[in-house]
């Protein structure tokens, strides 16, 4: 593993991503990262792994990467808190670890959108859209997903001090949209749709379930209360265009993936990580780890064009399918 540190030839970079249920990892992170690596170092090899949301599987994948001679590991841990053991294993073989997207305390480098910030931004959008009053339902992520706790914490830090009241709160196993729909429906049977003036959904999948529940309970599509999510899924952007969802959090993955590639290639070549990357991010310190922190972006209907479209994250045609053509035109997307 240590032999190729000196030269650029044949360096091996391992990329470990956590799951497949969210589109971003395989549709964006991986290809963007690989393309950038290829760009920077034509004979570098990228080993790719996806842990399917299973910590144990990820530990095996790390071992496997090391067995195959990885020179640097870019690790998006299933569980940032328990990933320290993995970092240790890599360090034991003198392989540096870049914590990608989720924080690991003993990693060499870290880069991410801060999860608590995401939660705060979601909650703030919701509070603003509701005029700081009214009742909301709150759907958090899976209780077995540590990131969910961070989103939840961030969101609560805003909501608890605001004028909105949480009617009911739910930790959704597996982030499942079906569960979100059923839970919301049950709440509507209890509280009456008119009493619900807003919904915090931790991600877009759940937001979709919430919309389905509300419209299913007879709320007209144009009378839906403010609903927030995250991930900037196409389905969510379509809802935003159609006025069914208020906002989503867009994490400009391109910048994240390319920064990671740049840092990884530098480390693989035995160089130090840059103080300022070519993507324009300064190295800073986050809880004692050299870090590159990106700003998540709240996307509302009017911002779609300048964000996801401008970044090339999606084409207008991806979002404005036949069913949404009219809404797109009204929102000025074409």
């Amino acid at each position, binding site marked *: 593993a240590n032999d190729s540190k000196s030269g650029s030839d044949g360096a091996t970079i391992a990329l470990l991503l956590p799951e*497949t*249920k*969210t*589109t971003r990892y*395989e*549709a964006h992170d991986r290809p963007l990262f690989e393309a950038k690596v290829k760009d920077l170092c034509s004979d570098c090899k990228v080993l790719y792994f996806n842990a399917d949301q299973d910590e144990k599987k990820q530990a095996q994948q790390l071992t496997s990467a090391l067995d195959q001679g990885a020179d640097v590991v870019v690790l998006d841990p299933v569980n940032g808190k328990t990933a320290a053991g993995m970092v240790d294993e890599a360090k034991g073989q003198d392989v540096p670890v870049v914590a990608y997207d989720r924080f690991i305390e003993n990693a060499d480098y870290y880069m991410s959108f801060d999860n608590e910030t995401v939660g705060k931004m979601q909650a703030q959008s919701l509070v603003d859209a509701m005029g700081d009053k009214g009742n909301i339902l709150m759907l958090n992520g899976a*209780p077995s997903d540590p990131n969910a706790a961070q989103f939840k914490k961030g969101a609560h830090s805003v909501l608890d001090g605001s004028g909105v009241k949480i009617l*009911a*709160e*739910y*930790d959704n*196993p*597996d*982030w*499942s*949209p*079906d*569960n979100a*729909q*059923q*839970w919301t*429906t*049950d*709440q509507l*049977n*209890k509280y009456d749709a008119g009493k619900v003036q807003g919904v915090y959904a931790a991600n877009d*999948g759940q937001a*979709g*379930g919430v*919309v*389905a529940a509300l*419209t*299913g*309970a007879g709320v007209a*599509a144009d009378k839906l209360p403010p609903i927030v999510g995250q991930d900037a*899924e*196409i*389905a969510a952007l*379509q*809802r935003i265009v159609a006025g069914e969802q208020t906002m989503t959090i867009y994490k400009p993955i391109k910048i994240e993936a390319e920064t990671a590639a740049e840092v990884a290639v530098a480390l693989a070549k035995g160089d130090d990580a840059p103080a300022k990357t070519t993507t324009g991010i300064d190295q800073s310190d986050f809880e004692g780890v050299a870090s590159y922190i990106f700003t998540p972006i709240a996307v509302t209907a009017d911002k779609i064009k300048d964000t996801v479209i401008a970044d090339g994250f999606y084409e207008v045609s*991806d979002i404005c*399918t*036949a*069913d949404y053509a009219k809404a797109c035109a009204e929102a000025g997307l074409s």
Partner: protein
Amino acid sequence: MTATKESVAATDAADERLIRAVSPGDYLRQGWGRIRGGDLGMLPVVLGLVIICAVFYAYEPTFLSSRSLVSMLLYAAPTGIIALGIVVVLLLGEIDLSVGSVSGFCAAVMAVIVVDQGHSLWLGIAAALGVGALIGTAYAVLHVRVGVPSFVFSLAGLLAFEGALLWVLADGSINIPRESGLAQFARNKFLTDAQAYALVAVVVACYLGSRLWTIRRRRAAGLTPPNLLAVLIKAALLGGGLGWLTYYLGIARGWGYLTVLFAALVVVLDLLLRKTRWGRHLFAVGGNEEAARRAGVRVGWTYCSAFVLCSVLAALGGLLAAAQLTSVSQDSGTTDTNLTAIAAAVIGGTSLFGGRGSAYAALLGILVLQSIESGLNLMNVDSDVRYIVTGGVLLLAVTIDSVARRARSSSGRG
């Protein structure tokens, strides 16, 4: 000894060891004896369901509101339909672990064809069900020709079709327009009051008609006919129950088309299982495959039909779940759908070893699971408590059945 009897007994009631019921009092006494002996069919599970409902109701009265019942019945339907397929496969002593993935994959196929590629809804539905049928056929070939155990090939299917779902949905989730016929059917279509009461009347008439016809034929054949009074009482109870339910659901939105579809599938499958040669052969193969084969039953076809039916029902359930949610995502069908569908069948009293079960098992089982879920949703508890209580309530619901069965076996049956 040929004891002189007051009247000539029917052929099937001639044996003197038989404890016969003649007067209504006898029937009551016999019924009570059966209850004491534990021969209760689905009663204990129904009792479990009633207790669950009562507890949740005590805690939160909206649990049994018309609105809440209407939505519970709607949400129970898609997984209930999948559970129907599972019942068929379990009757053979086989299992299908892949129904969840298959349901998600088929729904995704439909969504891609209809939403992404803009083909007609019918083509999408046909394609999805067709894919389901193909999957079932492949399973049948693996089982019948190659002899792979169903646990293994359906586990392989579970993985493979989850992969296929990810592959089909490479661009992420797909929204199904709320105005599309399928979404309307699953979410917004309800029977009018007139339609609903008419349907109830038809159901009761069919029941009564078929029972009266049976009485006539059995009497003509010299066999004990069902007791007329009992038949009339049952018909009245059926009519009253359904009528009241229709009234109560009608306070809210009434019978959803989706609910009616599920109910109709349950009734049809029940008839198929109990009243047709196919159903008979299913039970026979599940009870003793070798005996069925020696009796000339085409065992291979029986397996084939079961696997195909199960996969097609899984596909249908998947379509309806997607329609209900108005979207398909990488998560569709994967989370717990398998376990929920299998659990529903088993909780309703279907044996994992084959040869025992019924279509109503799927109905009852899914109602138990759905009411636990909805009840806990209304209680707003932390997820740790939620898990523990779900486990506990589930156990409770089934324990009643087990205790009853125990009584039955200690009195020498089954």
